[in-house]
């Protein structure tokens, strides 16, 4: 069995030396059709919150000071709220104060195709949906959420960075960007055997449905194995499913609403089907955003299933005394994954776990809800075109980590880990992060 | 009603008028140019007015003009050439006050027209008296 180091198959088709195109295009729509599709895609998201936020901006520019892309480049085009310009134009034309007047006078102020192409870089390459800008905005505008909405129209218009688009299509074709159910079973069994862990797959009835991310299947094999190890240790009735193993949601990242729905409902429906009360997500950030906070988009009423992130789950188990840990000692700093902490509400859970591990936490200058993104979130890691910019941002983070002088560097998101590992490769920095879950798995007392 | 101005404003105001007077007076002495200051149009409340009058004081000359149409009181202040004038109407209502900087205030001087008229009248009266005298002879 071949195990990729690149967690997002397939490998890049274009060599790095190729000039990065200013934008990518999918499909053979005419420019007019693209504008129309983007416009309609934007409009579908104009619910109450979006409407309120599109009206409230006072153009103060504070958001730039929270954004790592602006901070590291000082290029004003990366001002977060500006990334929404085409979205805002569509809003102004459709529901803004002068929309009726514009329609009456036949003024077409929809964004042009050139504008949409130009903004592709801003909506995808230079936004990691980390939501740090949301925390500085004096009007409380949730810019991160709006950029995610803007991606819907961009996807509909076939204006997505190619790499992102390809992964998305792969996921569409196979139900997971990793591969088919058969490929999953093959890989899962191989890892289980390698790490000598029992991984139940496709049990008909179980209480917990464990899910995974391609990163674990392709690179972080130990993380994959450790999740099983922990569940086995706790003695839960759990399983994985070859039809619903994929927690990663590239529909969420690329703006493909249909795929997002398909991936999320696959997990929830499978859990309901096997009578599971919990869908357990791996250490993955946006998986948490998609499955825990957006599953409700696709269901008319509540489902009898809880969605838990691994960190949250471990915190509960340790808190309840079902997992006992031996002290690790050491000092460590913790990288807060945006989707889990700032946007997920799990700020204290990882800190409680570190404390339970007897680790002396040295916080970075910016941490917790105000920590900087690793630079690879929101699909930026998968988007090879964004790499140069990402590396600049990585530098900012690296400095903050080094400044703590901590012995260990820990995080709880596989995507963040890969971003840091790539950064290490690129810069020769030898400080890859450890997985919080692996640390727990390694230090459980029998 | 209390509208007492604070002391400093009073002093400043009086100072300004006095400075103006000094300039005009020096000008009068050297060039003979006369001047007037209309006190009616200056915003002065009774305390200020009293303070100004106290400062100017009274000099050697006092005169009263009384005619069919009203009355004017004139006096020279402690400063030669600085005169205070007060005009009243025929019902003794104060019309206005002014300060004149002049050797003699204009209004005190007999007007040529009046003098001509007076001369004519005097002549006529003399003629009449002479006539009477002859008649008595």
């Amino acid at each position, binding site marked *: 069995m071949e195990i990729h180091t690149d967690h997002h198959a397939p490998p890049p088709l274009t060599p790095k030396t190729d000039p990065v195109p200013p934008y990518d295009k999918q499909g053979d729509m005419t420019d007019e059709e693209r504008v129309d599709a983007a416009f*309609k895609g934007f409009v579908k998201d104009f619910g109450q919150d979006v409407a309120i936020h599109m009206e409230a901006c006072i153009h103060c520019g504070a958001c730039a000071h929270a954004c790592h892309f602006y901070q590291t480049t000082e290029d004003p085009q990366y001002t977060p709220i500006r990334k929404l310009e085409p979205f805002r134009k569509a809003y102004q034309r459709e529901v803004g104060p002068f929309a009726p007047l514009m329609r009456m006078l036949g003024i077409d102020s929809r964004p042009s195709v050139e504008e949409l192409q130009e903004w592709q870089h801003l909506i995808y390459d230079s936004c990691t949906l980390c939501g740090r800008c949301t925390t500085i905005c004096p009007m409380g505008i949730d810019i991160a959420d709006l950029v995610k909405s803007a991606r819907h129209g961009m996807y509909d218009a076939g204006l997505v960075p190619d790499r992102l688009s390809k992964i998305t299509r792969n996921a569409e074709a196979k139900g997971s960007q990793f591969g088919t159910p058969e490929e999953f079973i093959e890989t899962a069994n191989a890892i289980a055997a390698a790490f000598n862990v029992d991984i139940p797959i496709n049990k008909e009835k179980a209480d917990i449905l464990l899910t995974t991310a391609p990163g674990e299947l392709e690179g972080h094999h130990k993380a994959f194995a450790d999740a099983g190890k922990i569940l086995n240790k706790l003695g839960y009735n759990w399983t994985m499913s070859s039809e619903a193993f994929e927690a990663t949601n590239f529909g969420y990242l690329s703006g493909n609403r249909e795929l997002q729905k398909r991936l999320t409902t696959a997990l929830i429906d499978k859990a309901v089907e096997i009578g599971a009360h919990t869908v357990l997500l791996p250490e993955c950030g946006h998986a948490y955003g998609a499955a825990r906070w957006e599953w409700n988009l696709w269901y008319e009423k509540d489902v009898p299933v809880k969605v838990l992130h691994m960190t949250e789950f471990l915190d509960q188990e340790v808190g309840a005394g079902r997992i006992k840990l031996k002290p690790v000692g050491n000092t460590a700093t913790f990288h807060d994954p945006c989707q889990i902490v700032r946007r997920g509400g799990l700020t204290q859970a990882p800190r409680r776990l570190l404390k339970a591990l007897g680790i002396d936490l040295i916080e970075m200058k910016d941490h917790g809800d105000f920590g900087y993104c690793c630079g690879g979130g929101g699909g930026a890691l998968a988007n090879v075109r964004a790499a140069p910019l990402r590396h600049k941002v990585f530098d900012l983070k690296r400095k903050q980590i080094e400044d703590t002088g901590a012995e260990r560097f820990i995080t709880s998101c596989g995507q963040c880990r890969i971003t840091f590992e790539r950064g290490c490769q690129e810069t020769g920095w030898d400080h890859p992060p450890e997985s919080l879950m692996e640390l727990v798995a390694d230090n459980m007392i029998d | *009603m209390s*509208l007492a101005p604070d002391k400093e404003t009073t002093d400043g105001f009086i100072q300004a008028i006095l400075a103006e007077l000094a300039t005009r007076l020096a000008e009068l002495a050297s060039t003979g140019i006369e001047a007037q200051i209309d006190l009616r149009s200056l915003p002065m409340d009774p305390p200020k007015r009293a303070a100004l009058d106290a400062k100017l004081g009274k000099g050697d000359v006092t005169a009263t003009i009384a005619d069919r149409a009203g009355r004017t009181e004139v006096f020279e202040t402690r400063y030669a050439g600085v005169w205070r004038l007060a005009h009243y109407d025929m019902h003794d209502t104060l019309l206005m006050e002014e300060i004149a900087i002049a050797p003699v205030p204009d209004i005190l001087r007999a007007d040529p027209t*009046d003098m001509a008229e007076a001369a004519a009248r005097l002549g006529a009266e003399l003629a009449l008296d002479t006539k009477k005298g002859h008649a008595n002879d």
Partner: protein
Amino acid sequence: MTEPQTVGEMLARKGISRRALLRYAAWVTSIMALPSSMTRAMAQGIADTKRMSVIWLSCQECTACTESLTRSYSPTIDDLIFDFISLDYHEALQAAAGHQAEEARLKAMEDNKDNYVVIVDGSIPLGNMGYSTVAGHANADVLRETAEHALAVVAVGSCATWGGLPKADPNPTGAVSVSQIVRNTPIINISGCPPIPEAMTGTLAHVLAFGQIPELDHLGRPRAFFGNSIHDRCYRRPFYDKGLFAKSFDDEGARKGWCLYELGCKGPVTYNACATLKWNGGASWPVQTGHGCLGCSEPDFWDRGSFYKPLPASTEPLATPLAAGAVAGVAAGALASRAAKTRREILGAMSKPKDAADTTDKT
């Protein structure tokens, strides 16, 4: 004995000395805010001039302007003005009546062509010429005829200057001001209801002495009397600046003489000399009696809302447009969001993006 040719000669004949004339000139110079140095020139000017023929026309008026000018309660120095002018026609004051009176007017116009002054009080009705007539002639016609060869027309009182009370909404007589009738003769407006007597006599003395019209403001009023607002010259102004206001006519503030701004005083937008010249021979003036200025010397003062409404308050009730607007706005908002929802649904249904994957995925 020859008839006196000039005012000076006439005064001398009456035994009034030049000193009295000088006193008068000093006073007029003062109230007209002319330089004191002009006193002698003014006295000389008056003395040298011939008595000026004045024709006084009364239209829709209440005679208060005449009352103000003649101040029947007591004659003062101002009475001198009657020595300076020849009031050849005044319905209320002249002895002549009927045809005799009208002939006097026509004779004065004939004898003093281009050299007489017309004083007008009252507004001129245009709604129906019969509303106000003299000797069978409509006011407008008499005014036009009389003003044509006048040196100047002096409109006294707010009726003659702006149309006055008769013009108040809904203006049943179609009243207009002198300036809307007289076209080719200079007009001096001396507004007020009634005007301050000194403003009238001072202006006449100026015209008499210098043979020219004094400096006027943008509404044709002598700047000397209408150059400052009541507020600018009000003795209560310091209380305004300190923010001390009477809140009712009998409260502590009113007793202490605080500013009447909040009780509707229109002093800040009213231009007149009440605060400096005062009324009744300098005895008092409205604000001194404890009542705010009504703004009687300004156009349409009676149509500018309540006399007791503070100046910053709007003249129309704003609660109504606010409430009605809010209701209408909510309704519009409900409709708009409904329409937007429908549009979104239509757009959403139409929005079937081509599946990009099928066409480009060659991997």
